[in-house]
């Protein structure tokens, strides 16, 4: 007795209507009553057609702004060839209204959706920072399907203000739980681009999403890199079906393509998880996405088993995201302990780069001086380095962990003929998630191009992020959230109108209001007490060891 939307184009939504055996498993989440209610998502792009018949009901003006013209209306600028349709298409994937007899259904069809118009004009660090920090206490998820040029020769990332916006988002946004930044991994496959040369997807604060075709193949536009977390469906070759969504001029389309189409699907699925457990932090959700992604039918030549037994690929991260699994895990997830950061300076004097060079480093310290280990389970691992090289794209850089997991930080990029090297660039890998950091880390640099290439490694620092808990030894927890009672009275926006604050503590349990329900949140190991400011352990910024 599956609840299936009646929208006329739902039958075309092959990635979530059970037409294929292993789809995004969204029907399972919907059948548990999870539709994104109470969650707010904003699409940072070229605007949103707010009066679209499939978007207006969920449109949220508070989650919207126009940073191109500095006014509150994010309506796209209409042109003869509809070049500003991108944001409207991304928005419909997340939150197109269901059961209204129009187009298809969004993944989180009861979530509120906003749009930020910021790509249709001069883009500066200020514009990006303002967009990414719009209403951080109101917007839960920002979805971005853009970035630096995917031309296989660019190395570029967020400016200082945008980095600050990310940092503030995860530390202060969502009442301290951290806002979610969902990012499309890049379309530079044809140019042999690598998404680790994009500082947005490569950031620890974003959750980078790749694409697969209906057949489970690597699409022609897909970029491989170590920072990709997860994968959703999108287009492939011309005969492959594409993504169904809303389009400009109150239309529907079944022609949305590229990694742009993948990130909003993941954003919608994460909205379902947030409805299942509104107290998840930005790091909790990254842990959950790792666990709710499966290799499924995805084909790649580089699937490897990492040190904790998970399969991981540079094309797909941990694999195809499963909404049913994600919401099941969200309900039983106990909060992740605070994030710790360990910085290990490995090279700090200029060293000539040999044709094949290995830089080993034994990591034992990573403790706070009291022999207590700061990190037992890794999350992100970064390599920060400066080097010069005669032809940057010929240099492959890889990192092997003490548990033997090898991830490629940057593969060869034949079009990158720059002689500028990497200046203080940070490469990130998700492939060591939950591994124990103690032991021998080996950075490898290898010339894979012109024989006479030369270069110098000026410095290299290994940055380990993680937590003191052994995440692989977590017991299966009982459900941590439960619906306490239905909301009786709501205001015009659908929010509960009762005297309780949104987050209150009652007899050792947290009482949280979402739009539809009051939730009881219990934590068997850390019962909350009356007067405690938050139901969640403190979310502390990374402390350097």
């Amino acid at each position: 007795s599956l609840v299936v939307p009646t929208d006329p184009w739902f039958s075309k939504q092959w990635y979530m209507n059970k037409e294929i055996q292993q789809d995004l498993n969204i029907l399972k989440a919907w059948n548990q009553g999870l539709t994104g209610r109470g969650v707010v998502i904003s699409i940072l792009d070229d605007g949103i057609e707010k009066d679209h018949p499939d978007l207006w009901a969920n449109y949220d003006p508070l989650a919207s702004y126009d940073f191109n013209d500095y006014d509150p209306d994010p309506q796209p600028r209409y042109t003869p060839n509809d070049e500003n349709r991108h944001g409207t298409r991304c928005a419909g994937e997340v939150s197109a209204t269901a059961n209204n007899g129009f187009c298809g259904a969004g993944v989180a069809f009861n979530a509120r959706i906003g749009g930020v118009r910021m790509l249709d004009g001069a883009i500066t660090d200020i514009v990006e920072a303002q967009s990414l920090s719009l209403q951080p206490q109101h917007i839960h998820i920002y979805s971005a399907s853009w970035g630096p040029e995917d031309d296989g020769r660019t190395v570029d990332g967020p400016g200082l203000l945008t980095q600050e916006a990310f940092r503030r988002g995860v530390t202060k946004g969502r009442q301290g739980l951290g806002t979610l930044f969902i990012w499309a991994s890049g379309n530079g496959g044809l140019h042999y681009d690598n998404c680790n040369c994009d500082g947005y997807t490569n950031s620890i604060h974003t959750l980078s999403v790749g694409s697969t075709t209906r057949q489970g193949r690597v699409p022609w536009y897909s970029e491989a890199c170590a920072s990709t977390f997860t994968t959703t469906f999108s287009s492939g070759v011309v005969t492959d079906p594409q993504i169904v969504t809303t389009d400009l001029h109150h239309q529907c389309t079944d022609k949305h393509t590229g990694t742009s189409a993948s990130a909003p699907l993941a954003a919608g699925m994460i909205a379902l998880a947030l409805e299942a457990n509104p107290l998840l932090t930005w790091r909790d959700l990254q842990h959950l996405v790792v666990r709710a992604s499966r290799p499924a039918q995805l084909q790649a030549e580089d699937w490897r088993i990492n040190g904790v037994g998970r399969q991981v690929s540079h094309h797909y991260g941990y694999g195809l995201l499963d909404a049913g699994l994600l919401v099941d895990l969200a309900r039983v997830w106990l909060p992740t302990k605070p994030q710790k950061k360990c910085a290990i300076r490995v090279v700090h004097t200029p060293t000539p780069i040999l044709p094949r060079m290995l830089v080993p480093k034994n990591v034992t310290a990573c403790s706070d001086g009291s022999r207590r280990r700061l990190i037992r389970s890794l999350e992100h691992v970064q390599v920060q380095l400066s080097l010069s090289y005669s032809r940057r794209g010929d240099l492959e850089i890889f990192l092997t962990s003490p548990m033997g997991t090898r991830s490629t930080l940057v593969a060869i990029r034949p079009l990158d003929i720059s002689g500028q090297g990497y200046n203080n660039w940070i490469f990130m890998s998700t492939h060591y998630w939950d591994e124990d950091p103690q032991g021998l880390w080996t950075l490898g640099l290898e010339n894979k191009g012109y024989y006479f290439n030369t270069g110098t490694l000026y410095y290299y620092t290994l940055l380990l992020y993680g937590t003191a808990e052994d995440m692989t030894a977590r017991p299966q927890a009982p459900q941590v959230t439960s619906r306490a009672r239905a909301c009786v009275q709501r205001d015009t926006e659908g929010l509960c109108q009762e005297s309780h604050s949104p987050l209150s503590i009652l007899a050792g349990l947290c009482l949280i209001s979402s739009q539809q329900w009051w939730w009881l949140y219990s934590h068997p190991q850390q019962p909350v007490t009356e007067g405690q400011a938050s139901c969640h352990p403190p979310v502390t910024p990374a402390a350097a060891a």
Partner: protein
Amino acid sequence: QAPIYVSSWAVRVTKGYQEAERLARKFGFVNLGQIFPDDQYFHLRHRGVAQQSLTPHWGHRLRLKKDPKVRWFEQQTLRRRVKR
């Protein structure tokens, strides 16, 4: 690719809005407001500066650098961003 400078500056001042207003009046900028909610970072624009230039504006750079209340500033450059 050479950076293209625009007529906008991000400026960090210690005492918030009043200080940003004073700075804007003193040097002829238009204060377009805070960059982050409730913070010390402000967006200033100068109408007398070329909207796009291959060189940073040395005069405003010097003036902002000399002002003791300015903790940090950056003339903005265009960023090439593509939809995916």
